[in-house]
């Protein structure tokens, strides 16, 4: 799993490449914790190159959700493939998380808040 970060206009974009599982979710958790410490709370997750997500990956996003909201931030996901989106659907997370099609929609949604 490769995690690339890009910070611009007060939006942190985290690009995930590969498979997000029990092992790689540890690195993602550290990345998000550090972002929170740096008060980067508007976080866009670029899933275009994300091939797989397990509960450990979902758990990372869930565990930080309320903290982000408390600081006025949020997660916006974009570019999910069908199988990754289906994992969110199985747990009902697609109704709680903000998931859009592309980067433009993600930025628009982030700037609305």
């Amino acid at each position: 799993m490769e995690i690339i970060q890009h910070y611009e206009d007060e939006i942190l974009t985290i690009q995930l490449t590969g498979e997000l599982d029990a092992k790689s979710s540890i690195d993602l958790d550290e990345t998000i914790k550090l972002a929170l410490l740096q008060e980067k709370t508007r976080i866009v997750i670029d899933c275009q190159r994300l091939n797989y997500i397990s509960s450990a990956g979902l758990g990372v996003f869930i565990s930080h959700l309320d903290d982000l909201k408390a600081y006025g931030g949020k997660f916006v996901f974009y570019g999910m493939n069908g199988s990754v989106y289906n994992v969110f659907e199985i747990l009902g997370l697609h109704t709680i998380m903000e998931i859009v099609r592309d980067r433009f929609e993600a930025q628009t949604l982030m700037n609305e808040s």
Partner: protein
Amino acid sequence: MKANLTTICNIDTQEEIRAFLNKFFRGVEDLNDQKRNQIVLAIDEAIANAIIHGNDNDDQKSIQLDIDINSKRIHIELSDIGLFDEIMNNDKKDKHLKEVIKDKQKGGLGLKLIYSIMDVVCFYTQNNKSYCLMVKLLK
């Protein structure tokens, strides 16, 4: 169709196991891509729980996976999964998602996924070995 593998209890092996499972299940006619992905996910979750919580990621230990498929169902058995709290006190799987978020809970979602995807899920011990049995009906 049958498949089996033995893996050491180390989370580094999971990507390789998923590759094995994807290749094997591509040969099953009655599975579309979505169903195949879901079954691989459920097995991956069960293995992750067994490695991390049941066997403390101890690569001196191993777990065994056996898969048996006929025209009606996929039968999956994991053995030597260890005994771990999430199974013995598996109320986490019944927890509402809003509670999971409120509690900033990272664990427990794997069992939720397993129970959502599989038609039968059973954890049991026999002759000092612990097992996870999962069945997915095909028709």
